[in-house]
């Protein structure tokens, strides 16, 4: 039986994450599988909103009022119920919420995969620093949709 997976990512990687998920969906359907995939739902936001820093996003009243609900929804309705958590840390970057989701997945004893080996925190892209303790929570680096699919089937 195929496993289910929740993706966790900074919304600045919305485009790349959509592409990754679309690719794994296609690969799975070619093999005749239907994967259960949950994503962070970055849709329905203004153009290029996802490229702003979280501090700037917080100036948007609607976004600000939705943050609490989104955090709970992603943690308890997605990460908790799926078998696998995939940390989409493009360029190694982990935002504050993604770090939180990583810790939550670890606390729940989930299998955790990540896109890249580095776990970088701080200001993206120039003020990043290495934070190895987060790396310790990740079981394996899985860099492609094809490799992830092999682990899910």
């Amino acid at each position, binding site marked *: 039986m195929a496993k289910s997976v929740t993706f966790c990512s900074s919304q600045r990687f919305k485009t790349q994450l959509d592409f990754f998920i679309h690719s794994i969906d296609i690969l799975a359907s070619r093999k005749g599988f239907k994967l259960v995939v949950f994503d962070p739902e970055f849709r329905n936001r203004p153009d290029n909103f996802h490229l702003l820093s979280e501090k700037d996003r*917080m100036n948007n009243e609607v976004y*600000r009022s939705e*943050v*609490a609900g989104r*955090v*709970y929804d992603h*943690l*308890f309705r997605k*990460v*908790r119920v799926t078998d696998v958590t995939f940390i989409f840390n493009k360029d190694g970057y*982990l935002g*504050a*919420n993604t*770090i*939180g*989701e*990583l*810790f*939550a997945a*670890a*606390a*729940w004893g989930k299998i955790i995969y990540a896109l890249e080996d580095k776990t970088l*925190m*701080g200001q993206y892209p120039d*003020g*990043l*620093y*290495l*934070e*190895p*303790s*987060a*790396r*310790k*929570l990740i079981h394996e680096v899985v860099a492609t949709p094809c490799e992830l699919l092999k682990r899910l089937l």
Partner: protein
Amino acid sequence: MRPLVICCSQRFKSELDEFVHFLEKRRVLVLPPNFKYIRRRIAKRLPHRRPKASGTKAEGLVLSHLKRIAQVGKMGGICLVFNPRSLNGQRKENGYIGKNTGGEIFGSAVLDVTVIMLKPNEEESYMALVSETDRKRIFTFQHPKGNPLDFDLVWENWLKGWLDG
């Protein structure tokens, strides 16, 4: 009395050591993060200014601290975020929470461990998990003029109530 697990940036190592000593004298079962092998001089630096070796030492600390949170949760205990001061660039009314401490707030919340804080923080997701509406969970909301480093005040007028409750 309920046991207490503390989540805290290593920047507050000195203050934390004093606070833990204060609580132990009051017979509180307290589990602080293990900063034993981190030098105070290094701990006070911002994360990106710490030498890489100190990060390597910290690798296992995060996992072991998540374990402590789970243990205290099973014993009916609570989690205190020890964030008594703001840093440069932060609003004065807020208290600093590092990224790992933020992660531990998420860990506590999903393990159903009640989280309380000395000061609020600008990160909306942390506040959402600690509860934006339940103001008694934050010391400076209850005591706006109180100093979070006045341990007697924190203990008598706030923390004791949580641990006895």
